[in-house]
């Protein structure tokens, strides 16, 4: 068999969704080894940044970082750096400290500590710039407020996708796609065709898009494929109202990296059409499906899109 015709496509349940990795352009054993390491990178992010797992960096921070400095893995530190940058750039719309609000509506499990603190106490637990935490030397982190609970699910998936794509490239994979439940990055010479689910009706496709050397992330309804039904609306909390964001139905963002695309979907879900400045700042663009069913995209999507209707 020709080396270049070999391809591998594998999937595992990680990060609460199905993670799929495709790789082409090397001999089969090398592709298998590269894909294996790429999954290991994603599993590492899962282990470090899960809100649910007791021993993750995030759980340790949520338990201890108000009392004393907590040392975290360099990857966790990087995601927290990204998070604070998005927080500043979006003037607080991107907020990793909305975990208590997600717990209140049942989208994150309760923790005894969170239940014991009155909900009204949360907004006061912020630093000077409204930031929930301080990044200190030696890879350590300290929370500003005793009630602070952070959750990286709005950004960790994108970060994991970028790390996995990096691993594939490092191993000489020429063309690859990492797709973590719709947050994806594609690289190589041949574009991948990506179908976008309709956020109002996830068993239907809205459009398709050619993606090459860039990332795509979507947010909207969470979909349970077993029962073919949406589960409880978007898991996006507007920090101003502490309620689920309802400005738009669904958002897909294109950016040069998946961590940027992933975080921006959360901001666009809240800010809607007012997010253009921020999209420009990150060199990103978006597709917005609004509640009335109309679909808008950034001007540069025209041509790349194949509409379903």
């Amino acid at each position, binding site marked *: 068999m020709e080396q270049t015709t070999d391809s591998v496509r594998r999937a595992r*349940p990680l990060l609460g969704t199905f993670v799929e990795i495709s790789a082409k352009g090397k001999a089969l054993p090398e592709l298998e080894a590269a894909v294996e390491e790429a999954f290991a990178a994603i599993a590492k992010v899962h282990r470090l940044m899960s809100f649910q797992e007791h021993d993750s960096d995030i759980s340790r921070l949520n338990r201890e970082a108000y009392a004393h400095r907590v040392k975290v893995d360099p990857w966790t530190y990087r995601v927290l750096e990204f998070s604070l940058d998005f927080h500043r750039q979006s003037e607080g719309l991107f907020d990793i400290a909305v975990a208590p609000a997600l717990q209140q509506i049942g989208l994150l499990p309760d923790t005894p500590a969170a239940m014991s603190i009155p909900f009204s106490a949360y907004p006061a637990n912020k630093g000077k710039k409204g930031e929930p935490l301080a990044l200190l030397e030696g890879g350590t982190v300290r929370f500003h407020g005793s009630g602070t609970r952070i959750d990286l699910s709005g950004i960790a998936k994108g970060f994991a996708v970028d790390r996995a794509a990096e691993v594939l490239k490092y191993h000489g994979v020429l063309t690859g796609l990492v797709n973590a439940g719709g947050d994806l990055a594609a690289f190589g010479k041949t574009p991948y065709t990506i179908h976008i689910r309709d956020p109002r009706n996830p068993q239907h496709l809205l459009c398709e898009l050619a993606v090459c050397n860039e990332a795509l992330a979507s947010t909207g309804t969470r979909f349970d494929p077993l029962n073919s039904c949406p589960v409880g609306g978007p898991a996006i909390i507007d920090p101003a109202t502490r309620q689920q964001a309802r400005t738009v139905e669904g958002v897909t963002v294109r950016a040069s990296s998946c961590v940027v695309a992933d975080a921006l979907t959360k901001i666009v879900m809240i800010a809607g059409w007012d997010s253009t400045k921020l999209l420009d700042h990150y060199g990103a663009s978006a597709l917005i499906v609004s509640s009335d069913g109309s*679909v808008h995209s950034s001007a540069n999507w025209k041509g790349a899109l194949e509409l379903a209707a």
Partner: protein
Amino acid sequence: MTDWIKLMAPAVLAIPFACPVQAVEYLSIADAQKLAFPSATRFAELEAGRSWKALAGERLLGLFVLDHVIGKHLYIDYAVSLDTSGRIHRVDILQYRESYGGEVRSESWLAQFVGKTSSSTLKVGSDIRNISGATLSSMHVTEGVKRILASYGTNNR
């Protein structure tokens, strides 16, 4: 500065683009076994089509358990590999099929795929889609993995 362009008015979406089948075969059972236990010389079936002991000569390397999740429109085959101390070594998805044309549970629908896992063909074609959009929950597979761990994890020592 980014400008927004209107792609579709609400009325246009009255007839949405259906996604009748999303079918991917990732791995055959034999390939999944080999990937999970590369040094195994044979796989001894414990329960027909369900669980296998991975052996290198006579030495036990671990256990390979096959399971599936089936819903109205979804069918997933997955494999859980346990090491000799009963811990999860890895979880692989073997087949993923979503269908909205008919019910996955119907015999005729499933019959199309019978025996396909035993072949090692890797299909990269028109019936395989890369999808973004609503985030699919893998909760049901995660629950299945926990059940397997509970029933096989302790019996594998």
